[in-house]
């Protein structure tokens, strides 16, 4: 099975070459995206087959004589990488289908396809390769390859304002992350330099070394996933890429980063300290709240979605932190619960975030604008897209009976067991993190009311929005495939939990109580007496309640004839600009949280009476992450450069003097060393 996956990677690599060779052929896009669709689908199916067999051949490993001559490349497929392969394959397949549809009718808002086609299959191949890597060299190589290919894809639209800057920041942050991972693997490899994962896994690690690896993994893998304060590149780079690439980056690549974190901290380092869990949870909580708050303030649809990725990564990290804390306290069943929540959310987020990003791609294609304030009323012009986007929005807002609710509910169940941890700091932290999780879920719902309402409801704000065409059948199929998954997994999560269960057992040594496949309808995380959930029952009850309520209202409440002043549906003015805007919708939240957390400043400039200039309203937001974590080092580097630049403008004699002094100092150091 591993061989099959590697053939898939090779095929995707070849597609990259084909895309370059056949760049003048008109239907090359169909070939490439169709090929990627086929390969991704088969990779996902392979992973499912592997998992359904329970990962019975526990070590599906290969050693190939490629790479560095003295260091063979190790590959291995285990249940954890198989689950993530499933996520990557599924996301890749749906996104490739959308791209297939869109490549058939490019319009002027799209970048030159020759800048996307060669790198798209390579990006998919690199992500797949990260998941099956079994030594540090292959892992880092594919990781960097993933960063670079996605960087080139971000640059596809390089002429658009801001994209080059976004790509540059992305490249710098990716470089920092890879260096951190390099050090992490170096520490794990030890002085003998055993770069194979199997050697690292068995070796004993001191607490200090293991902690250093955790911190480096947080910087390297966490930064790639988008935890605060390393998230700054994400809302810049993800929206700048073409929409289907944004979907891959947000929906799939961040999951590969989560995989890297899990592989390092849960698998390679071995048992952890309880406070690691506290640290990871705290970072997750802050990430979730800051991500969703920043998302609420955006009026660029794709950037809003990118900030939501930050939020969901925060949720996943809360779950991972909880699993670390339970695992360190020898509560494997509860660790399994938290891990199940984390992995289920990984799957869910990849589904609905890919859906939302390709939905926003359809909107961008139709209206040529990412700004929400220039959309409106699209539900009439694009009903299919609107329905799929609505389902995705409801799922990401964690509304039952959709899939987002299941994973967040499981996570909250896990957090309710927090007081069972013996450490007092954890007992105090967990309720706070739970509150942050609840807050971020509520704010996410607010945010998607805004996103869906402003873009799809109301009246068109611009002529482009009024003329927007519905997107093509392929793209709609992709969207409805993902939306269907959102509903299906929400109602019947058991099959997905069956796929997650082997990985959870591998990492925590235990399995979640309700995930044994005996109970398809009811989800019982710990104990039936304590809590249980059934998506299907929820759906039936909600539907029943809604139907009954509407019948009752129709029967009893709307019969009587009433006389009142004509209500003009809230539009006393004829202009569409009198509608709610994205900014006005977010204003209450901005007033409550924005001043403290985002340093939001609202400025109203009213012209004097008699002055004909327009009144202006401006909102300024500050990201504290920039002010605290990036500006000071930047200033330090600049002042150091200023200081050393004095040395660059000297005479030959002084240069010789510098060299001589260096030599003398080194000799003296060497002498005292002996």
């Amino acid at each position, binding site marked *: 099975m591993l061989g099959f996956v590697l053939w898939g990677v090779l095929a995707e690599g070849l597609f990259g070459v084909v895309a370059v060779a056949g760049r003048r052929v008109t239907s090359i896009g169909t070939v490439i995206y169709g090929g990627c669709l086929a390969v991704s689908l088969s990779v996902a199916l392979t992973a499912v087959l592997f998992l359904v067999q329970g990962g019975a051949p526990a070590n599906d490993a290969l050693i190939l004589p490629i790479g560095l001559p003295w260091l063979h490349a190790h590959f291995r497929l285990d249940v954890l990488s198989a689950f993530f392969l499933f996520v990557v394959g599924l996301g890749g397949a749906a996104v490739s289908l959308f791209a297939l549809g869109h490549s058939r009718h490019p319009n002027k808002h799209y970048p030159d396809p020759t800048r996307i086609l060669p790198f798209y299959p390579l990006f998919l191949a690199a992500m797949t390769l990260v998941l099956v890597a079994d030594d540090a060299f292959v892992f880092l190589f594919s990781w960097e390859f993933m960063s670079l290919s996605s960087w080139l894809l971000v640059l596809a639209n390089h002429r658009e304002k801001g994209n080059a800057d976004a790509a540059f920041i992305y490249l710098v942050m990716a470089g920092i992350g890879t260096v951190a991972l390099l050090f992490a693997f170096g520490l794990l490899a030890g002085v003998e330099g055993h770069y194979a994962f199997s050697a690292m896994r068995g070796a004993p690690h001191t607490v200090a070394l293991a902690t250093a690896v955790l911190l480096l993994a947080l910087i390297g893998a966490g930064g790639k996933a988008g935890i605060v304060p390393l998230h700054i590149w994400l809302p810049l780079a993800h929206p700048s890429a073409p929409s289907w690439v944004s979907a891959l980056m947000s929906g799939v690549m961040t999951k590969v980063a989560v995989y890297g974190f899990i592989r390092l901290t849960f698998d390679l380092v071995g048992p952890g300290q309880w406070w690691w869990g506290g640290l990871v949870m705290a970072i997750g909580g802050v990430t979730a709240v800051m991500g969703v708050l920043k998302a609420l303030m955006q009026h660029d649809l794709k950037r809003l979605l990118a900030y939501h990725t930050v939020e969901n990564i925060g949720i996943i990290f809360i779950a991972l932190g909880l699993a670390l804390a339970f695992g360190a306290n020898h509560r494997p069943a509860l660790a399994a619960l938290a891990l199940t929540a984390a992995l289920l959310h990984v799957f869910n987020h990849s589904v609905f975030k890919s859906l939302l990003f390709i939905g926003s791609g359809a909107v961008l294609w139709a209206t040529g604008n990412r700004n929400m304030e220039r959309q409106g009323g699209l539900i009439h012009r694009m009903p299919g897209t609107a329905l799929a986007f609505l389902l995705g929005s409801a799922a990401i807002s964690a509304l039952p009976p959709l899939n987002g609710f299941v994973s967040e509910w499981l996570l909250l169940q896990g957090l309710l067991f927090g007081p069972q941890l013996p450490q007092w700091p954890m007992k105090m932290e967990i309720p706070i993190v739970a509150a942050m999780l609840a807050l971020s879920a509520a704010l996410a719902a607010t945010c998607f009311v805004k996103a869906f309402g402003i873009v799809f409801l109301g009246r068109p704000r611009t002529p482009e929005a009024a003329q927007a065409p519905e997107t093509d059948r392929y793209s709609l199929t992709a969207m409805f495939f993902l939306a269907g998954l959102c509903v299906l997994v929400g109602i019947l999560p058991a099959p997905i939990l069956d796929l997650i269960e082997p990985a959870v057992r591998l990492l925590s040594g235990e399995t979640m109580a309700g995930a044994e496949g005996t109970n398809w309808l009811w989800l019982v995380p710990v104990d039936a007496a304590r809590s249980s959930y059934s998506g299907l029952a929820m759906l039936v009850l909600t539907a029943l309640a809604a139907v009954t309520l509407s019948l009752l209202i129709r029967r009893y409440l709307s019969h009587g004839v009433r006389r009142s002043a004509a209500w003009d549906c809230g539009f006393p003015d004829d202009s569409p600009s009198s509608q709610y805007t994205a900014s006005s919708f977010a204003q209450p939240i901005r007033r409550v949280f924005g001043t403290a957390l985002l340093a939001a400043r609202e400025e109203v400039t009213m012209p004097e009476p008699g002055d004909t200039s327009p009144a202006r309203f401006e909102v300024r937001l500050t990201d504290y992450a920039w002010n605290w974590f990036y500006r000071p080092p930047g200033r330090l580097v600049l002042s150091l450069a200023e200081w050393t630049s004095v040395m660059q*403008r*000297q*005479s*030959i*004699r*002084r240069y*010789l*003097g510098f060299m*001589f002094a260096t030599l*003398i100092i080194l*000799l*003296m150091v060497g*002498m005292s060393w*002996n």
Partner: protein
Amino acid sequence: MEFSDPKVQLQIAYLLGGSMVVVNFALLYQSRMSSVINAFAIHATILGLAVAWQANVQNAPNLYITAAIALVFKALALPAALHYVVRKLNVHRTVEMVFGTGLTMMAGVALVGLAVMIMQPVTQHSGALVTIDLIFAMAVLFLGVLMMITRRNAVTQVIGFMAMENGLILAAVGVHGMPLVVEISVALAVLVAFIVFGLFLFRIRERFYSLDVRYLDPDSRIPQ
């Protein structure tokens, strides 16, 4: 005195190597250009003698070629050429120093001490000749660099550079079995350096009507 006595041989090698260091201090001390060049000629002569003595002691006739190169080329031809350059270009006849003579000499003494401290532990297990020879060579090397960085005039820098080269050759002959190829390459390196520095001098002269390397500084405040 019996020249075939190993002790005497060793003493003579020490004497010659030590004299090179002493002449190097003399190089640092000179304040007139012509006497600097003369001191360098003495430096090269002693080098030639030291190499010849090693050729005799080690029974390595090929070293006589090196000695000849040092005597003819470095002790006669190069000083003559430098005298010509100084006369021809009307170079300022006093040596412009960055620090005072006393300070430079003290730094030189410290560097000789450093050379001893570095070389002694490294060459513990080699013969006494190797140890002392390498100490002298290292000291000559250091003093050459010191000369280069404490003199403003380009000609004196060239001389510092070549004194440094002399140190290298002294180190090379102290070790048994140094092949001739390397010797010639070192000599050629000096030659190349001479050409480069010669061109360099003419270029500065053309550009600034002076040989003061301060004119090459981007931030130079010297009126041109």
